[in-house]
């Protein structure tokens, strides 16, 4: 363990050297050659392995976090404008090293050439070993290829799927650490913030996350957690239900009972927010951002019942009870529940 901690600390120092130019390092990066750089990336990869091995072990994790804190503090004293490396940064250490190196004006041009070297495609196919040569070339190629293919297939949808899968993996990892759900909640909060609120992208990611795990039993814990979290965050849930296309929502409802019930609740809430507008002869939403018309609402209900027939009976009962509480009139425009029931032919 001592050795591991020492290595961790040394690698973070290495990262600092790589990223920072100036007198403090006396041109250290200037002296780097091919082997030095390869070794640096090897050490970064080593730290990534260390993280994946020990992140579920709270005791070891704590020790490592402490070590990193120490190293960060000592580096902060020496290097002005130093950015800290935390334990959760470790899985991306190679990437951070790359960013640091490329931003460093003292990096020898020969090393940059090595990073951007375009190998022949046949080499790429054969070597699974992550060689540093051509690393940047590979990244550029993948990004460019995604853009080239984006007119044909939705880039954001593919991105959302990948992000969703990664979200579930991370959630799973956080939840397996113990019974404390706070890190997982904190993580979801950060993601929500990173997405600048529950915009379309966030909704796509959550949906993808919930849909991609339908086949794997190991994902029950994160799935349940995410569904619960979603149910508790009403605003997010509402945004989800209004931003996403109906087909996706139906898919979600089919897969997860919790979501089905939550979705039904949202639809009912929308209905309860409606008022009858005499000039238009229709029920309209009174909230500041009307998201759905009465007609659309009925359509959504019908689609939901078609996909989940078991829901129909209970909802019918509920709607009837609500209609009775409104006076049980059969006249249009008096009770949204009554009009809903007749529109749904119940």
């Amino acid at each position, binding site marked *: 363990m001592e050795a591991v901690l020492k290595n961790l600390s040394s690698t973070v120092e290495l990262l600092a050297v790589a990223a920072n130019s100036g007198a403090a390092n006396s041109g250290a990066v200037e002296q780097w050659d091919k082997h030095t750089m390869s070794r640096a990336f090897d050490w970064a990869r080593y730290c990534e392995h260390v993280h994946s091995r020990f992140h579920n072990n709270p005791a070891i994790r704590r020790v490592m976090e402490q070590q990193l804190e120490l190293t960060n503090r000592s580096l902060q004293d020496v290097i002005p404008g130093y950015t800290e490396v935390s334990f959760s940064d470790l899985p991306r250490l190679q990437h951070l090293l790359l960013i640091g190196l490329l931003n460093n004006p003292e990096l020898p*041009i020969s090393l940059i050439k090595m990073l951007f070297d375009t190998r022949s495609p046949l080499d790429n196919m054969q070597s699974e070993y992550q060689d540093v040569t051509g690393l940047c070339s590979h990244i550029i190629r993948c990004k460019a290829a995604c853009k080239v293919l984006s007119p044909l297939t939705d880039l954001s949808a593919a991105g959302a799927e990948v992000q969703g899968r990664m979200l579930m993996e991370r959630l799973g990892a956080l939840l397996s650490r113990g019974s404390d759900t706070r890190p997982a909640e904190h993580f979801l909060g950060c993601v929500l913030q990173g997405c600048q609120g529950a915009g379309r992208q966030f909704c796509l990611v959550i949906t993808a996350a919930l849909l991609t795990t339908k086949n794997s039993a190991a994902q029950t814990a994160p799935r349940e957690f995410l569904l619960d979290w979603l149910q508790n965050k009403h605003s997010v849930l509402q945004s989800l239900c209004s931003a996403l296309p109906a087909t996706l929502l139906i898919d979600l409802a089919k897969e997860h009972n919790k979501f089905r019930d939550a979705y039904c609740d949202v639809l009912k809430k929308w209905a309860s927010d409606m008022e009858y507008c005499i000039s238009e002869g229709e029920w309209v939403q009174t909230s500041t951002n009307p998201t759905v018309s009465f007609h659309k609402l009925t359509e959504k209900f019908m689609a939901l019942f078609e996909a989940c027939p078991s829901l129909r009976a209970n909802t019918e009962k509920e709607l009837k009870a609500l209609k009775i509480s409104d006076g049980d009139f059969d006249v249009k425009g008096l009770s949204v529940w009554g009009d809903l029931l007749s529109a749904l032919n119940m």
Partner: protein
Amino acid sequence: MSELQPLSQPQQTAEPLLNVQEMQFWLDKAVAWGQADSPDTQKDTCLHLNRLRDFLQQLLAHINNMSSTAETMKKLPLLGQFLGRLCWNPYVTAGDTCRRLLLQCLWGLYSEHPSNAVERKANQWIRKVLCQLATEEDDGVAQALMKHMGVPAKEYHVNVLKKMVSLLQENIGKSCCSLSDINRRCSCDSILATSDACVPLITCPEASPLIGALLQQPVTCVKEALSEHFLDALSSAYSSWNLSLEEQAVVSLWYHSLPSLEEAVLSLLESVTNTASTPQMLHQQVAQSLLPKACAQHCSMFLVANDIYRSVLKQAEGNESVRSLIQTFTRCFLRELALLQPQTSVSLKAFFPQSPQSLLVPLLTLPSEMPQESWRNHLNWLSGSLQRLTEEEEEGNGDSRSTRGHYKVFETWFLLVQCAHWVQAAVQLLVTSEPEDCGPLLWLLTFYHHPTNRWHHRALQLVRAREAWEHLRSVFLVSARPPIDRLQSLVTPLSSQPQQPSPAPLLTLSLLVNFAVFCQRPLSVSTEVLQMSRWCIILVWLMKQHVFSAHWSSD
């Protein structure tokens, strides 16, 4: 336009000076591509990629010729802008060749020891552009997510790309024209669009499943589903070894694009005729080329390959390596065909439409598929049939201008070349033949080497072949110690200038070699005979060609 005056010092290469108008043209193109993102712009970019590549090559040579960056920038002030714009065009950076050339241009502009402000600025700019290309993310949300989820950028982008490729693959699988439902819109347009979009991605390994799927989707529509541009780019990348495709994808590529099939056949011919190889190596080369497999799946491809072989044969008749190739090719093809469909006799006619039908099955049957005792009878029959066919045609066409008869003789001979295993069997049997049996076998052998009377003097060659055979027989079988002088007399005519047509060295030598190997004399005698011959080197080669293959074909 005083920009581009010839330099005072002599140019190192003979490269024409870069035209400023050309530079302007490409800069305008780069600007136009960067501004719009419509399907037309995308198409335009893809169509110009080849020319852009050539231009970048020119540019690179030009930059390397300059003594300093400052000078380059003075001569071509628009260069920086141009390269910068190209860096941000994904169609240019997705393909390996263009990206490599672009980067090399940038390296060319980097100065190790900048001596003035222009060069220092250029250095800074190059570093900045490269850093941004590799590390900047357009999607802020994705970037934040990557950070929180602890996912490195490379892994993320690779996964997104793979996801997009698999989504597109699924789409291709689903869409195909169904003739039963006329109302459904033909989805060939989307496949065409996909194939066009894949042109810059041909060298991208992550996209190869998609390219494979495009090539292998069933051809159900009358319209061409794959863009010609796509097929051309694929075939040139494949032939210059820049591409690795699955076997079936290659077969599909040849099926869709006739030029690429022709290219493959010609390159096989070239590689075979340039290097001497043993029959095993030849067999391996042919099998690895995937051509026999492809021809077994598609009759049309076999016909095309054989047409190419016919024309090569007509131009280079004496070339033994071409004939060996044709024989090996046919054998590999038959093997693949047998693997595909158990009963081959049904469709053979389709594969050999121009060959005499009565001879097809007898010739295509391998000697190894027959007991050795029945070889002689079979060969006698073959020889008789061939003789009849040939002489009929030659007699029937007294008019030397008629080509139809010669066409038939040629086709008969071509079929024999394809099935030369029987010629080898004949030579082998000649060693143990008696004078009364050798006639048909000699005729067959002579016909193989000299098919016609008119141009190859077959009748005369037959006589000479018989003489050679009798001679060799007496040398190897009759006398106790082979008389060297008699052997020399056999070999001497081969070295003299052909004043009169002499038996082809090949015919005589193949007889010689077979006698040496298959006669019942001790090995030492044979080796002594061969060592005495002045044609040792050719003999060794010939031995490898004939003897090993004869051995190999007989087991």
